[in-house]
């Protein structure tokens, strides 16, 4: 099919079209919604980098914290998560100003680079342009990947480093210096992007590489690279207090539940269960018949990627939080696997190949329906039919959001306080404190911070309907404080707002991301203003 068409147009044209599509999907209206809590954490720290040179949690007015103050030391130096993403955002703010677009732009660009690298990885190593184009197109149209890549967070940076690492691994790193350097550098940078990502990716990567590419590995060089990486990450291990955070790892408590949840997320959003079962059956049958999988280098590579994905989930499982964001760096690997499967389906039966391609590119039905039938679907109670946990046309939902004004909860709160609050006013909220810190000139307390004794009652109270608890499963200090203040009869007046009190805002997690406003809002925002400071009605 593709051979005849090559004669009519240049070979690079499909790639250009895919990259143009990717650029549009990643860059268009990048600032359509404000930063939500996690993005605002990165943005606030980046803002402080511009002021202090280092990520400082306290700027003299507001404190950046979501772990009851455990993220920083006595000098407020940030020691919870690595700094690379913070400095990327700081550089972007320095060039583009303190805007949503500037904060997200570098990561969106990295998303485009990921699409290019997926194409290159396949085309360069296997010479199969159809497979390369399909893999790149699958990543481009993966709404889950697009949502995360448009965040002012490390997600696309981590994904890009995974691809650089794979690309370098497939080049002649055994004999050439630059691929060897890239292998080591991508590992080091990945650690300083997110160490959970680093450990969860590299442990299975190394094991799978030894298992499948044993004869290609030069041990001395491999040991040298590993040693260099270990030396470069030692300062980070100490700075980010990883030993202290590893106390949260609980093998027996988390592994069973988390591994089931991660596999459920994988099948619901990244690789459909029927395809995973097909691959398992295919390789199981080959093992049974002692057939040599290694005759086909492309299939060997697919097995390699599958082992990395499986091992990644196993390594992630002991960590306390199971979130889809810890799987996003596997999106390109899944796209490569799915592209290969579509090509095989095409060669086997053209009609099925086309149908499979259309289903995977345009819908999420092959992901959602099988897990729904088996009763293993993860679908939170608060999900709406226009979310990715229901059968949908994901790109249609995504474009709908980009081309219309979504009533974002953080946007409404920001707008309200920019209009009604005075600089220096104290706002106490149970969540969403960090976006308010970034966008307003108020002193914002609460959220998931440690309790701060108040010298005077705050002028504004923002209780959110979704109740949050700390890691000890007690009510957060902000929840308790607001309940106590509201129990004082007559101290505050109610200001109900006609906007939905959405749980997070622009969170990219498919279980929480809304593309269009819900059929019926769950709850409306209510703000309380202290009566003695309230403005009289006109």
């Amino acid at each position, binding site marked *: 099919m593709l051979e005849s068409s090559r004669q009519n147009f240049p070979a690079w044209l499909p790639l250009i079209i895919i990259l143009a599509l990717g650029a549009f999907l990643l860059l268009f209206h990048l600032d359509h919604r404000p930063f939500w809590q996690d993005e605002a954490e990165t943005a606030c720290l980046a803002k402080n980098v511009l002021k202090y040179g280092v990520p400082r949690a306290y700027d003299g007015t507001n404190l950046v914290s979501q772990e009851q103050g455990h993220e920083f030391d006595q000098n407020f130096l940030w020691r919870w998560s690595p700094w690379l993403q913070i400095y990327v955002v700081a550089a972007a703010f320095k060039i583009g100003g303190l805007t949503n677009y500037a904060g997200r732009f570098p990561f969106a660009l990295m998303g485009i680079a990921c699409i290019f690298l997926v194409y290159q990885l396949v085309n360069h190593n296997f010479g199969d342009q159809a497979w390369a184009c399909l893999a790149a197109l699958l990543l481009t149209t993966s709404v889950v990947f697009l949502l995360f890549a448009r965040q002012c967070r490390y997600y696309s940076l981590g994904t890009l480093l995974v691809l650089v690492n794979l690309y370098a691994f497939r080049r002649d790193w055994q004999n050439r210096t630059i691929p060897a350097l890239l292998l080591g550098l991508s590992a080091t940078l990945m650690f300083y992007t997110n160490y959970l990502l680093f450990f969860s990716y590299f442990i299975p990567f190394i094991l799978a590489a030894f298992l499948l590419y044993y004869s290609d590995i030069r041990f001395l060089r491999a040991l040298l690279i590993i040693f260099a990486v270990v030396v470069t990450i030692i300062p980070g291990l100490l700075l980010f207090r990883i030993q202290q955070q590893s106390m949260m790892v609980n093998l027996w408590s988390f592994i069973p539940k988390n591994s089931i949840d991660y596999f459920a997320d994988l099948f619901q959003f990244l690789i459909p269960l029927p395809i995973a079962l097909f691959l398992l059956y295919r390789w199981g049958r080959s093992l049974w018949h002692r057939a040599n999988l290694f005759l086909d280098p492309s299939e060997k590579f697919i097995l390699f990627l599958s082992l990395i994905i499986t091992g990644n989930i196993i390594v992630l499982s002991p960590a306390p939080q199971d979130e889809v964001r810890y799987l996003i760096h596997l999106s390109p690997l899944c796209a490569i696997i799915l592209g290969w499967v579509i090509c095989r389906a095409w060669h*086997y039966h053209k009609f099925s190949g086309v149908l499979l391609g259309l289903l995977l590119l345009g*819908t999420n039905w092959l992901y959602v329906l099988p897990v729904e039938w088996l009763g293993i679907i993860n679908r939170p*109670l608060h999900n709406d039919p226009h979310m990715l946990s229901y059968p*949908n046309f994901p790109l249609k939902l995504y474009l709908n959001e980009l081309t219309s004004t979504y009533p974002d909860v953080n946007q409404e709160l920001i707008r309200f306080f920019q209009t009604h609050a005075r600089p220096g006013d104290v706002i106490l909220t149970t969540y969403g404190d960090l976006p308010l810190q970034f966008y307003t000139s108020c002193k914002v307390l609460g959220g998931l911070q440690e309790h701060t004794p108040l010298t005077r009652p705050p002028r504004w109270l923002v209780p959110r309907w979704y109740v949050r*608890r700390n890691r000890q*499963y007690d009510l957060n200090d902000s929840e308790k404080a607001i309940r106590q203040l509201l129990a004082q009869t007559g101290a505050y007046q109610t200001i109900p707002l006609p906007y939905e009190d959405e749980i997070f805002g622009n969170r990219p997690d498919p279980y929480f991301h809304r593309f269009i406003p819900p059929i*019926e809002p769950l709850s409306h925002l209510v703000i309380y203003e202290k009566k003695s400071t309230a403005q009289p009605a006109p």
Partner: protein
Amino acid sequence: MKRNPLPNPLRNPSEWGKWLLSAGLLLITVLGFYQLYEVQVVFFPEKYQEIEIKLMHQEFCKIDKNLKKLLLKIHYLQELNAAGRQMPSDPVDGFSSRAFASTSNIAAPPQPARVWQAALHEAKKTRGYVAAKLIQMDVILTSLQRSLMSNDAAPASIRPERQKLLAQIRQIRERYKIYQGDLKKLSRKLNNLVDSYETSHASN
């Protein structure tokens, strides 16, 4: 001259796989279209609400299970509190600190305070889970009720369906109140246990 009949593809076993694959993918395609919200709302206007109500019944099973788990954990904590240094087995997790001590010659047996803290952490986690679920259900029930009652222009044919759903929501509300009451009682017991433990340790 006789024409040779067209070969029957189903006679050829190697073709079965292709037909099965196509059939499977076509089934997904058809069902995918059928399950789209925009299509469902035309044929089954209340389908989304029915799915939500079904999910709520599933959530109730989880809440029920976790409330029982919480009760057992509270009993375990009561035994820990009463027995002092003696450490009974946790009936929920099956963890016996005595068994741990006897099988592990190298590691020291766990301190009573640590056992208490671990058991308390698990009890609070279960309580937090149930509380979060109940709050979510309350908000979603209110929203569902609002959406069902708000559309007065609904055709007469679907009004019985709507009434049935509203009746189911009322039943769910009753059950929700029972679970909420149970959680409050257990929460009070847990808080009292924590206070009594802290008081006894403070005086020691």
